[in-house]
C-alpha cells in the first residue's frame, strides 16, 4: 500500500472495472464526465471525491449501466457495457452491489424482502435465500427488524438495509454513493467497516463521498473529480 503522493494507478490488465477515455454529456457541449480513464482491481477500496456536480454520481451510474457513455468504453467484470443488451445488463447487475444515495428501498415490502430480492433475481432457492438474508441482516444489526417495513426504520437503519441488499449476493463490485451521507459518526464508522470488510474479501469498491475524514481513515485509493475530469488518482495510506 502506498502513501499520499504516490503516482497515479495506470490502467492495465486484470481490473474488474475499466474505463477508457469515458465522457458523458447529458446535453450537447455540457460534459458531466470528460475523458476519464481508470481501473479498479479486486480488493480495491477507492474513494471518489470532488465537489457537487463533479461527476461522482455519473461515474457510478455509468459503471452499473444506468447510463451509457457519450464517448469511450467501459468494461465491467469482463463485459463491454456498450455491447450489452437489456438481458446482459440485468445479468451483470446481479454481480454488482449498489448503495444508492436515496437508498431506493421497496417501501411496500418488509426488510427481509428488500434484502432477499437481490438473491431472488439470481434464482437462489427459498431456504438458502432466507438463511443468507438472515445472516446479512444480523451483520448489519437489523435481524430484529426483519418483518418491519423500511419506512418504520430510522435513516441510519435504512442506510444499513440498503447496504445489506448490496452485499447479500457477495458482489464482485460494490458501488456506494454517499453511503454515510446523513449518519452520525458512530453509524458512519459502522457502515464503513462493513464496506471495508467487503473490499478485504476481494470486492472492488467505489465509494463516492464528500467526507475527507473517511478518506483519511479508510482510504486506500483516492480518485478526485472536478468539472467532470479525473484530476487525481492516488494510492494512499489508511486503515
Amino acid at each position, binding site marked *: 500500500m502506498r502513501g499520499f503522493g504516490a503516482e497515479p494507478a495506470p490502467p492495465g490488465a486484470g481490473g474488474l472495472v475499466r474505463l477508457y477515455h469515458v465522457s458523458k454529456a447529458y446535453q450537447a457541449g455540457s460534459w458531466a464526465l470528460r475523458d476519464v480513464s481508470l481501473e479498479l482491481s479486486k480488493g480495491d477500496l477507492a474513494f471518489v471525491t470532488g465537489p457537487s456536480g463533479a461527476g461522482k454520481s455519473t461515474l457510478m451510474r455509468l459503471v*452499473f449501466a*444506468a447510463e451509457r457513455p457519450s464517448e469511450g468504453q467501459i468494461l465491467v467484470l469482463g463485459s463491454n457495457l456498450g455491447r450489452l443488451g*437489456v*438481458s446482459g445488463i*440485468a*445479468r*451483470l*447487475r*446481479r*454481480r*454488482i452491489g*449498489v448503495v*444508492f444515495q436515496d437508498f*431506493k*428501498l*421497496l417501501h*411496500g*415490502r418488509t426488510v427481509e424482502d428488500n434484502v432477499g*430480492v*437481490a438473491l*431472488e*433475481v*439470481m*434464482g*437462489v*432457492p*427459498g431456504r438458502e435465500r432466507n438463511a443468507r438474508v438472515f445472516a446479512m441482516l444480523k451483520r448489519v444489526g437489523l435481524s430484529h427488524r426483519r418483518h418491519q417495513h423500511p419506512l418504520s426504520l430510522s435513516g441510519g437503519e435504512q442506510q444499513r438495509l440498503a447496504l445489506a*441488499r448490496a452485499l447479500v449476493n457477495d458482489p464482485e463490485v460494490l458501488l456506494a454513493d454517499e453511503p454515510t451521507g446523513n449518519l452520525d459518526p458512530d453509524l458512519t464508522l459502522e457502515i464503513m467497516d462493513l464496506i471495508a470488510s467487503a473490499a478485504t474479501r476481494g470486492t472492488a469498491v467505489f465509494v463516492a463521498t464528500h467526507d475527507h475524514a473517511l478518506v483519511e481513515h479508510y482510504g486506500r485509493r483516492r480518485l478526485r473529480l472536478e468539472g467532470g475530469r479525473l484530476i487525481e488518482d492516488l494510492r494512499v495510506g489508511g486503515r
Partner: protein
Amino acid sequence: MSARAHVARAAGRALSGLAASPVTTGVATFTLALCLLLGGAFALLLVNMERVLAHFGQEVRVSAYLSDALTPEAHEQLAAAARQLPGVESVALVSKQAALERFRASPFGRASLLDGLDDNPLPASLEIVLAPAQRSRAGVDALVQRLGKRVGIDELGYGHEWVEGYARAVAGVRGIALALGAVLALATLLIVSNTIRLSVYARRDEIEILALVGAGRAFVATPFLLEGLLQGAAGGALALAALALGFHAATASYASGLALLLGSAQPVFFDVTQALGLVALGAALGGLGSAFAVLRART
C-alpha cells in the same frame, strides 16, 4: 429456481402488489368492469338481435301447392324429395284438411265463405324453409327453378319483397354491429391500457429498483401480468353480474314491450360458454394491458 417456483413467487408478489395498492387496484378493476359491461351489453344485444333475425328468417319460405290428383302417399314422396334439395332447411307438408283448418282459424278466414261448397277447395302444400345462407332473392329463385320442374306441383308461392327486405335488414344490422363493435373494442382497449398504465406508473419506483438489482424482463413483468389477469377477470365477473342483474330487471319490467318487439322470440342471456368468454376477455385485456404498460415503463 424452477419455473413452477418462479410462477409461485410471481403470484405471491402479484397478490402483495394488489393488496399494497387497494385504491389503484379498485380503480383499474372498476374501469375494466365498466368497459366490459358496455361491451357485454352490446354483445348481449347482438346475440338477441341474431335470434330475432333468425326467427324472422324462418318466414323466408316457398310454398309449393300440390295437385289434387296426387295421392297422400305421392304428397309424402314430394315432401321427402324437397327435403333433399340443396339450400333447404326444412319442409312441412300441409294436407288439404290441415289447410282448411288453418284457414278457418285464421283471423282473415271467413268460415262462411266455404259453407256452400261440398269439397274442400284448398290444395295440400309443402312449406319449404330455406337454410340461413340461402335466405336471399337468388336463393329463393334457385329453389323455385328446381321445384318448378317437379311433376305434381301446380303452383309456387313466395314473396320477393319480403325476401329482399329481410336480406337488407340482416346486412344492415350486421354492418352497424360491426362498426359499433369496432369502435367499442378500440375505445375499451385504449381505456384499459391507459388505466393499467397509470397503475403501473404508480409503481414505477418498484420497477426501477428491481431493474437496478438485476431483475430480468420476465421477473419484473410476470407479477404485473398476473395482477392484470386477476384484475381483468374480476372486472369481467363484475360486468357479468351487473349484466345478469340488468337483464333480469329489464325482461321483468318490459316483458310486454319486448314481446311486441321480438315477437315469439324470447330474449336470452349469455350461455355458460359466452359468460366465461366475457370473464376470459377481461382477463386477457387486463393481462395484455399490464404487459405492454410494464414493458413501456421499463424502457
